[in-house]
């Protein structure tokens, strides 16, 4: 396999890199130290110039987000690292948190300095016991080394970072749901605006950034914005982590320059599908992303604009490979159940719509479908998307329904008309 440039995984293979001493032997925390000698605006400018975009799914420019934080020195500001990683098909932040906890902390120190924050949190989904333990230990060791706490590296800068354990709710990955959860209420998303950068945690300015986003910051500071832009495309600079799963020979997490061909990820790096299986479809960016047919997937490049051209999104980078043996009604049954289950229930279109869509898919799967159901699914999916709800979960629920039904319509029709399907599906009701 060809060697690709590494930003996040540069030091991943170094034995015991999760230990503070080893991390420091390999240049760790030098960039945090350097950042603290710089003016905050200078740090933000480098990140802005690098073109780094948020890796949590939406791809918002990171430096620009930081610059929205009011410069009012009397106000408390928070940095909230989003380690909720619950988008189905995604398992990249977990690797960074478990294997490179200090890289994330270094990125957080730099970001905290840039936005003048002295208290930061890492919200980690409750299931990630090892990530939680790794970061708690890393934070403790930083205190011993005066890398966190008061007067870091002998400067005037103070910073505390705390781990906050989630408790099993996909919606707490949505930034305002995360904030509600931190505030001790149900993880209900909040109406935007105001955006968190203006009024977030405790209604104070807060920056929410994904783990992968923050972990890229030390490299950018070290090598400069232009060096980062050498990788990737103009609109999607840098590298990104891609999580390859499904029946392929080499599933796993790979760091690749943005703009990498999806085909090469699956067939070259991933080694192709397991014996006797052919490619039927690909979900390129986690369960929320619209599905691509095999033909479309072969033409797709893995960057924001490349996925957009194909009518889908890069999302979280969760690439799920679907073999020709898989029944798409069955797969949509799984996905629509997920969104129905995870809707927080605040908004009627989302709460009712996700339930209806799952119920209809369920009846089609179990030989109770009616001819009009195909159109009904498309109508509901259209009616709940497009900013009609407090958060984007409703859109995320609508996109799979719309794309599976449109692109694999015949399978839905066959299920309804012939009441039979000879592709792989799980038959008992689950």
């Amino acid at each position, binding site marked *: 396999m060809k060697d690709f440039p590494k930003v996040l995984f540069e030091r991943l293979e170094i034995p015991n890199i999760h230990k503070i001493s080893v991390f420091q032997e390999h240049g760790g925390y030098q960039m945090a130290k350097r950042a603290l000698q710089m003016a905050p605006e200078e740090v933000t400018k480098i990140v802005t110039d690098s073109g780094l975009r948020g890796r949590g799914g939406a791809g918002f420019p990171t430096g620009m987000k930081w610059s929205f934080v009011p410069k009012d020195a009397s106000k*408390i500001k928070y940095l909230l690292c989003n380690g909720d*990683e*619950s*988008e*189905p*098909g*995604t*398992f990249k932040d*977990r690797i960074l948190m478990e294997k490179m906890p200090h890289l994330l902390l270094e990125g957080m120190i730099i970001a905290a300095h840039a936005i003048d924050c002295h*208290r930061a949190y890492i919200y980690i*989904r*409750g*299931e*990630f*016991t090892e990530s939680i333990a790794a970061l708690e230990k890393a934070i403790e060791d930083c205190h011993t080394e005066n890398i966190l706490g008061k007067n870091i590296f002998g400067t005037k800068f103070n910073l505390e970072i*705390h781990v*906050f*354990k*989630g*408790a*099993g*709710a*996909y919606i707490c990955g949505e930034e305002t749901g995360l904030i509600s*959860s*931190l*505030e*001790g*209420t*149900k*993880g209900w998303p909040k109406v935007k605006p105001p955006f968190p950068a203006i009024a977030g945690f*405790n209604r104070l300015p807060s920056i929410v950034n994904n783990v992968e986003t923050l972990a890229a910051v030390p490299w950018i500071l070290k090598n400069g914005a232009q060096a980062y832009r050498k990788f990737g495309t103009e609109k999607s600079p840098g590298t990104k982590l891609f*999580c*390859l*799963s*499904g*029946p392929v020979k080499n*599933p*796993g*997490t790979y760091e690749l320059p943005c703009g990498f061909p999806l085909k090469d990820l699956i067939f070259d790096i991933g080694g192709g599908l397991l014996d006797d299986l052919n490619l039927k479809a690909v*979900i390129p960016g986690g*369960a929320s992303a619209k599905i691509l047919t095999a033909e479309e997937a072969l033409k797709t490049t893995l960057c924001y604009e490349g996925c957009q051209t194909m009518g889908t999104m890069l999302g979280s980078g*969760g690439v*799920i490979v*679907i*073999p020709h043996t*898989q029944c798409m009604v069955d*797969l949509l049954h*799984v*996905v629509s159940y*997920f969104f129905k*289950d*995870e809707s927080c229930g605040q908004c009627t279109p989302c709460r009712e719509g996700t339930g209806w869509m799952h119920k209809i898919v369920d009846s089609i799967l179990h030989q109770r479908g009616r001819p009009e159901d195909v159109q009904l699914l498309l109508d509901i999916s259209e009616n709940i998307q497009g900013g009609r709800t407090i958060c984007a979960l409703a859109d995320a629920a609508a996109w799979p329904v719309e794309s599976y039904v449109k692109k694999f319509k015949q399978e839905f029709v066959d299920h309804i008309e012939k009441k039979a399907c000879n592709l792989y599906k*799980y038959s*008992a009701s*689950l």
Partner: protein
Amino acid sequence: MKVSFSPKALKEFNSFEGLFDNPKSRLLPTLHLAQREFGHLSTEVIDYVAALLNLPSAKVMQVASFYTMLHKKSVGKYEVTICTNITCAMMKSRELLAHTLKKLNVKEKDMTQDKKFTIRREECLGACDKAPALRINDTYYYNVTPEKLDKILESLPS
């Protein structure tokens, strides 16, 4: 029955105060701690947490019931959560769930009679490259087959 934290748990609870600017943020950490102490969040536990945090019990209950990892009724010594999301489903995790429920003769989310196991499905566990994946209490297991799971469950002490 009245419940209360052990001195050690109480010490941990007291340490939460320093972590947040608003004391309300202590609720979720306290619920995690209470579950670790008492096994599940019974009405008594909810009332106790409410009293500790000076919140109405209804509010504590509302939050507790929002999260799948917080148990409102007692669960087995081993909680087995099987991912049934896209990749795991394609790699036959639903068969794994059905097999295990049948083998242990128990309904999803109920406890086995010997109180050893509670089995339930879970959404994506973030281990899709090693599907099907599941967790037993805090430990992950990967590429699990029905035979493998039978062996794992048998090997766990009662």
